[in-house]
């Protein structure tokens, strides 16, 4: 396990209406992230939102997720992690593997980690689904060390949003 922390799962959180980008038929991840952080329990060190919708930011055509660097909030979209999105048969194992990687990647940012140049590291930047599949499922030694220095065990909450 990459993060030795206590995790609590919270209930659904409504998606803010103003985050919908009608022209792009996508959701603005930064706006959702802000709402997520605003509603986070006061004792939570980090909060991770998981959403079905396809996410974007104004400058990029899509994002797999978004996080606050050194902040508390992280958000991951399931839309592009599913095989169906690419016209293939559903595959639960692949889907779970991708979610594991992207969730930890975004949480890594909240602990101050930036993108890593090592392809085997979870913090490697994924621009395509092939990048997600290619990268490793753990942090590299350097990123793990940076992470360990920032973690206070037992203070991480996990929420899910739709």
């Amino acid at each position, binding site marked *: 396990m990459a993060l030795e922390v206590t995790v609590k799962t919270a209930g659904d959180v409504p998606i803010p209406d103003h985050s919908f980008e009608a022209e792009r038929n996508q959701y603005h991840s*930064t706006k959702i992230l802000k709402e997520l952080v605003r509603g986070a329990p006061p004792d939570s060190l980090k909060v991770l939102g998981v959403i079905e919708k396809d996410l*974007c930011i104004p*400058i990029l*055509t*899509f994002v797999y997720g978004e996080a606050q660097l050194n902040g508390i909030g992280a958000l991951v979209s399931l839309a592009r992690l599913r095989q169906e999105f690419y016209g293939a048969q559903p595959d639960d194992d692949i889907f779970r593997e991708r979610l594991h990687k992207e969730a930890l990647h975004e949480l890594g940012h909240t602990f101050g980690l*930036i993108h890593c140049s090592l392809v085997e590291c979870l913090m490697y930047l994924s621009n395509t689904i092939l990048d997600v599949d290619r990268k490793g499922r753990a942090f590299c030694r350097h990123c793990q060390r940076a992470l360990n220095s920032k973690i206070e065990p037992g203070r991480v909450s996990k929420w899910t949003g739709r």
Partner: protein
Amino acid sequence: MDRKVNILVVDDEEIVRDSLSSWLIDDGYEVAAAENGTKALEIFPSREWDLCLVDLKMPGIDGIQLMEEFKRQVPDQLVIIMTAFATVDTAVKAMKEGAYDYMVKPFNPEDLSITIRKIIEHQKLVRENIFLRKELKKQYRLHDMISKNHKILEIFDLVRTVAKSNSTVLIQGESGTGKELLARAIHEESLRREAPFISVSCASLTETLLESELFGYEKGAFTGADSLKRGKLELAQDGTLFLDEIGDISLKLQMDLLRVLEQKEFRRVGGSGLITITSRILAATNRDLKKAIEEGKFRNDLFYRLNVISIHLPPLRERKEDVPLLVEHFIDRFNIEMDKKVEGVSDGAMRVLMEHDWPGNARELRNVIERAMVVAKDTRISEADISLPASRKEGTNGKSLGDIEKDHILRILVENRWNIIRSAQVLGIDRVTLYNKIKKYELKKEVGA
């Protein structure tokens, strides 16, 4: 990553600035953002930007105007123009104005990543290239001299070795090959570099003048000597005395000089006290001294006294590979002197320069480049900007005797840097006749010549 990559984001939309900045920060870049052109211009001088991402449409200063201003301050600045409106016209305009790339918002994450990585690689290569070029230039350089010709490079090595000694050096070579520059390089490489380097052009002075110039005179030594004057031999004490055009001095002065070199002491004209010489003597000539010895015009013993170390500088026509290097060197120099931004010469201009015979050697090339830079309207010197005198190889068909005489006199004058005494000697006519011919043919010294 060797050093943090600095990126400046300029966009009037806060949401774009924030999302692009945070994406770039996540990726490990140093990012600053500005909401308009005015703010961007305030931030711009604060550091060296590897890349500026500039929005095309902004109120006030637009993206193209801002890019132009960045490039005016830093000509190599890399700029990517961003726009939400993808039109071919704006894309073409942005690229034409010097944008490195053009991107339509929103970007595909992969495109943005690839573009930025490509730029970082490009920047790295540019920096490496500049470093290697500097290193290469160091190898080709000896103070103000530059060459990649193997003979000259051997001379550079020899200079570095002999500079530390006190031996007399005789430098031979045509006019304009850089004899004085080499003499200065010997001085600069020697332990005498802190002491004076004194140069005397022996050909430009009459015998009596040269004598008082070299040895100085006591007060009252002759009519008009109303105060003591120290000669160049004395002024160059502990330093280097360079006797240029030594082949042009009279036999009497040759004798005096020989005595000085042998005895290491001299007297001022009209003086009785002996002054010991502590300077090093370097001499140069464009004449064939061995031939002058055979003709009885130069003393054999003085030649051997001067010729302890002999250096022959080859003419430029025998080292044409140096032409592009010298062209670049002179352009760099005149860009600073003239406050210009000439980047180089066109292929056509370089062809003309390579084909020319260069009778006036590197000095002639320097003058041609200087003149071309004055007249050039573009940032590259074109063929039309190059003005060369008639080549030695040029035929004489259809030319009158007067034309041929005119060309010949002009060539000799250029070769002898318009030194009238020397040119008249070479042409075998007296000075008055030469002045008359210059007047008759309306010959004029070129700018910088």
